[in-house]
């Protein structure tokens, strides 16, 4: 049983969420949510469509320090902005492989995060870019790092009466670069078997964001500075950082393969971030 409402503004949206009493689902792109709704036709759910809320933040807002994505920022809008590509190559690459063209035209970046799939394509990149989430509730707004946002598969820190209104991604310091790698079962449109994003600072400090290797997307610790042109150093750092990966076996792949691929993709993401061609 599906109900639908289109709140006038964000405070109206919060009221609707409150009224829905835990059954409210914020609807933006719907590319994940509506798949779920079709599969659970008898589950009572109230879809709260905030796309036309009058005081919604703009899809993309750029300040001196950060880029703020609103709920209506869709995947396809990321790929076309050269400035975003220069700052967040991993994020743009990740957003460009979410679903198909038609999906990317509709799928919301914030929606992708709120869906909290362990295999979420954009999460690893957002994690290495230190993204923060802004959550609105009747009590006002609160903000948290994306690392704290993911709690479990399908579950986030955004409580039932709350909604995510912004995703802030800091403009990286000079010399910081990111890279993204993903493994799928086929070459066309697919869900990730494993994904990895790497951030590398100008000093060679590496962090990794990992997808589909744990109940939530993971951000690893920072490495000691390394020379990314040195294959041994890269391999050592990848081994050290990916030790947190703890994947399951499922319909897409087995645990052993996922573990091995985490290391391969992490290495490749580091090299992509450092813009180093791997010797074959």
């Amino acid at each position, binding site marked *: 049983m599906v*109900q639908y409402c289109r709140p006038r503004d964000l405070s109206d949206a919060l009221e609707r969420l409150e009224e829905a009493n835990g059954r409210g689902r914020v609807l933006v792109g719907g590319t994940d949510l509506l798949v779920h709704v079709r599969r659970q036709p008898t589950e009572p759910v109230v879809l709260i469509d905030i796309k036309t809320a009058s005081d919604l933040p703009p899809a993309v807002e750029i300040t001196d320090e950060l880029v703020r994505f609103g709920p209506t920022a869709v995947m396809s809008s990321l790929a076309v902005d050269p400035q975003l590509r220069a700052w967040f190559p991993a994020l743009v690459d990740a957003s460009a492989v979410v679903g198909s063209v038609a999906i990317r035209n509709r799928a919301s970046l914030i929606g992708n995060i709120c869906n909290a799939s362990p295999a979420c394509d954009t999460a690893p990149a957002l994690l290495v870019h230190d993204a923060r989430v802004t959550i609105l509730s009747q009590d006002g707004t609160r903000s948290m790092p994306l690392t704290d946002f993911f709690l479990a598969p399908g579950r986030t820190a955004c409580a039932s009466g709350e909604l995510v209104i912004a995703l802030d991604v800091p403009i990286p310091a000079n010399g910081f670069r990111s890279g993204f790698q993903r493994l799928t079962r086929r070459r066309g*449109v697919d869900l990730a078997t494993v994904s990895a994003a790497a951030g590398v600072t100008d000093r060679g400090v590496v962090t990794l964001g990992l997808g589909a290797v744990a109940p939530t997307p993971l951000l690893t610790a920072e490495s000691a500075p390394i020379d990314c042109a040195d294959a041994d150093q890269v391999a050592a750092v990848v081994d050290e950082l990916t030790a947190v990966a703890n994947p399951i076996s499922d319909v897409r792949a087995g645990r052993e393969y996922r573990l091995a691929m985490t290391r391969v993709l992490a290495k490749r993401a580091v090299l992509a971030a450092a813009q180093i061609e791997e010797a074959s």
Partner: protein
Amino acid sequence: MSTNEVAPTNHLSDHQVTLEVNEQAVVLNVPAHRTLLDGLRDELCLTGTKKCCADGECGACTVFLDGVLVNSCLVLCVETEGQSVTTIEGLSTNGLSDLQEEFLNSGAVQCGVCIPGQVVAAEGLLRTNPHASATEIRDAMAGNLCRCAGYERIVQAIQVAAGRRVEIT
């Protein structure tokens, strides 16, 4: 022993939605869960838009929503208030388009169920990237499955149609 018991449900209440479909204003009275795909097919009898996976994975239901390609199975009718939709029927009002002709000339059409979605997706591609390379065509069309696997033929059709458009402009 197990049972398959599920929670009882309330009956469905309708929403009134006003939108434009193929340049005509239409009013739909639909329950909230009615997808744009089902609305087009069942309420408006626009059956050129096809239903296969209903999960946004196959592309058979591709339409333009406010000029942008979407999977109509992943859009609700109620979301489209005030928006404009163009379906395969809307692309076929003045006889066959150049793309549709080239689909036929290239042998791209076999069973044909995926073809309306393929044509709409290809039209969307050529509008945004008139000089698409074969690789770009494959990337852009990868969300449109064809089980008869006319992929090579469709790429050829799009390339020829693109060439015809570039010649004209």
